[in-house]
């Protein structure tokens, strides 16, 4: 019998599909959190493969902050339609009412729109399992995260009380009100993600590719002036710079890099030659030491 050596991407793909199917088989009401970034794009692509010829048997949920890049909103709606999946968009009504924004409210912006918004959306629809595109290589506290991450009825994550995961056997049993966050691409690295996007021809937001865009520089971060809500200071003028993004979030919180990489191979090339890690462009991690771990315990994805 001929032996076919599986590549690392084939093994990663097979593992992710196995995880997606396991949740579809065992959870009562799963949902896929879709943030429109490159990791979400890969996760959605894997879901299409896992359930073909059926559409993935769960909806997509975007926990919106109203502060994402315009290009992200465009791709979001298109990607859901292409996959034949229902798209649910949730915005925390309290944050909306109070006009919470990243310019005036600092970390409260993330707390209310994302952390609280996510909990509210999961409770509202009664989802008992939510797929997320987090990877273990992103941040040190993520390295210990389980693939099936168990959350109490009030969405808390207890790092000392997680279930051991052996072989490919995931324990998805839970009491009423409890839920799981499931991370199908836990074992992928940033390079794996880019290579897979390249190999499979997955559509991603154009912001990952370099183009001249209006920018201002604040606290060392190059920020894109994506819409009229960006409050310019006295004398501040947006400057056109050739920039792209390594990671996408709320536009006022996401730093761009100056770049000429206009194609996928060029982006990968730049990533491999670069000397700073992916999350550096995100303001959220620098708030306090071990900030991600703290946010996770509170229910942040």
């Amino acid at each position, binding site marked *: 019998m001929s032996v076919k050596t599986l590549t690392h991407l084939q093994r990663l793909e*097979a593992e992710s599909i196995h995880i997606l*199917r396991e949740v579809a*088989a065992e959870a009562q009401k799963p949902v896929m959190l879709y943030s429109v970034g490159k990791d979400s794009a890969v996760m959605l692509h894997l879901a299409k493969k896992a*359930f073909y010829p059926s559409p993935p048997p769960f909806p997509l949920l975007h926990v919106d902050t109203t502060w994402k890049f315009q290009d992200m909103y465009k791709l979001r709606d298109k990607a859901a339609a292409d996959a034949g999946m229902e798209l649910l968009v949730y915005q925390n009504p309290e944050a909306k009412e109070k006009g919470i924004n990243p310019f005036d409210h600092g970390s409260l912006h993330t707390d209310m729109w994302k952390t609280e918004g996510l909990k509210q959306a999961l409770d509202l629809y009664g989802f008992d399992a939510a797929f997320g595109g987090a990877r273990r290589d992103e941040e040190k506290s993520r390295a210990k995260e389980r693939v099936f991450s168990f959350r109490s009825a009030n969405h808390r994550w207890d790092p000392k009380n997680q279930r051991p*995961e052996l072989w490919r056997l995931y324990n998805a*049993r*839970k009491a009423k009100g409890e839920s799981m966050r499931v991370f199908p691409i836990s074992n992928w690295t940033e390079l794996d993600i880019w290579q897979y996007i390249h190999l499979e021809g997955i559509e991603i937001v154009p912001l990952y590719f370099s183009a001249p865009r209006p920018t201002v520089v604040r606290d060392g971060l190059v920020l894109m002036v994506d819409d009229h809500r960006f409050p310019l200071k006295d004398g501040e003028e947006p400057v056109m710079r050739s920039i792209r993004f390594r990671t996408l979030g709320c536009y006022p919180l996401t730093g761009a890099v100056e770049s000429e990489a206009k194609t996928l191979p060029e982006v990968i090339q730049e990533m491999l030659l670069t000397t700073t*890690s992916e999350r550096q462009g995100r303001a959220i991690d620098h708030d306090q030491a071990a900030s991600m771990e703290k946010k996770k315990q509170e229910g942040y994805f």
Partner: protein
Amino acid sequence: MTDPIYKTDALIAQDIDAYLETHQHKTMLRFITCGSVDDGKSTLIGRLLYDSKMIFEDQLAALEADSKRVGTQGQEIDFALLVDGLAAEREQGITIDVAYRFFATEKRKFIVADTPGHEQYTRNMVTGASTADLAVILIDARKGVLTQTRRHSYLVNLLGIKNIVLAVNKMDLVGYDQKVFDQIVADYTTFAQSIGIERFTAMPISGFKGDNITAPSANTPWYTGPSLLPYLEEVEVDATTDQEKPFRLPVQWVNRPNLDFRGFAGMIASGAVRPGDEVRVLPSGKTSTVARIVALEGDRDVAVAGESVTITLADEIDCSRGQVIVAAKAPLEVADQFEASIVWMDEHEMVPGRAYWLKIGTQTVSASIAQPKYEVNVNTQEHLAAKTLDLNSIGVANITTDREIPFAPYAESRDLGGFILIDKMTNATVAAGIIHFSLRRASNIHWQATDITREHHASMKHQKPAVVWLTGLSGSGKSTIGNALEKKLARMNRHTFLLDGDNVRHGLNKDLGFTEADRVENVRRVGEVAKLMTDAGLIVITAFISPFRSERDMVRGMMQPGEFVEVFVDTPLSVAEERDVKGLYAKARSGQLKNFTGIDSPYEAPESPEIRIDTTALTADEAADAIIARLIP
């Protein structure tokens, strides 16, 4: 800072397409590093990340700052800080869980399972080893083969890892002395053979200084073997040999987009599959042929072990999640009794006889574990007598499942021979298990079919059999209500039998005490007796405290649907204690009586009983009437 072979900036800068092409053909190796707190494990992993250029400048700057602040290496870089993750652990200076690290070279992507070295070690190491293709066992050159080394090796071997690297670390601290290295290798060889490890590769290294990590070190000219990283890049992975075994596909999900398509999705555990192959579905035994291997990018000609696929069959045969599609000519064994090694992973000790969920492959069944045949002392590998297993202990025991399941011995297949046990109440994963073999008893003891059926027995008595299961605290009134109920039923010409807790303990169960395990066995036997009595057509009334939900649910599962009527005799503890008809509460309070329900042993109230009797509101007669109203509508 880095060896040239792992530094590929030139190719990346000059020809990114060629680089991507190379990297798309990389393979993957998952390995585990085993060592104790001071063996330099985190330092070694940090060194591998550093040398394979997985560390970015901002991380390096943070690392240098952290090294000076909390590092243990003076002014030098403390690589261990790269891999110590959670805040609480960083303060204590230890890692407490399994963490996964990633790095890649030209040839391979690596996933490293990093496990800590203290009392939770067995549980974490077994978890990390379960997915590993290879194990790196670290030894401190100054200390040689220690108890921990033996423990790590035993666990690695138990989990079936065939590729073992013995990394003799901290060679810099013994002056790179060949004699030290040779002595350690000789000691280890003797031990390894004694526990059945067939081969291993030993290397003298220094994670801290970088000797023999990426390239041969000038400090060890006497060593001519491979360096660690090149070895990890080249070593053959077991996964490819899985393809040569017979085809096995545990069905994970049935894909039914419409009436015309029925696909069976799952990850191939072993072998390969092509359209036209003859297959058999287990445990039903039905056969068919593979019609298509369906994929988003188009149908495929072949799929192999380790791939997640969707296949369709030529015939419409029953097949659902948990069943296994296998090569028709090489089917799997099917059984319901096994001998297995069990690694206990929960704070609450194992309860022999209790029903747990057993998940193996893609199926979950109910299973109970017998009292262990022995426990293994993980440090000395001695066999010890054991009544149960507690956290981090390993033993061998027989397991009985509630139905026959297809399986393979673990030595043949990790996917079809490894299982987890799940507590039915807390849903915690309480144990990992490894099937050795099936017990022949399952196929040798057949159910004797009798000509006078249970329906016949029941119809002669003009009644529907049932078990009225009275549960509640000691002194709650179970026996009183049971007695009243039986008298009323007798007056209605119903054939009944009352099984009373105290009475049964005088005979059938007089060998049992009041420990958790004995209480479980007590209820199990009563359940079996009650079941036989329902076969005889009787209405059985039982009056037992039966404090645990698991066992009441187990008995419910033994009966025909609808024949089990759980009656919760609900009396507050204070009321039962005040009554104290037998004087037992007083004894328990004074410490003369141990494991007394409600005092120092828990009572798990039913969540949804068929009937709840509030004894503070109803008399025994009224309670009996309420039960009859439900029993005989």
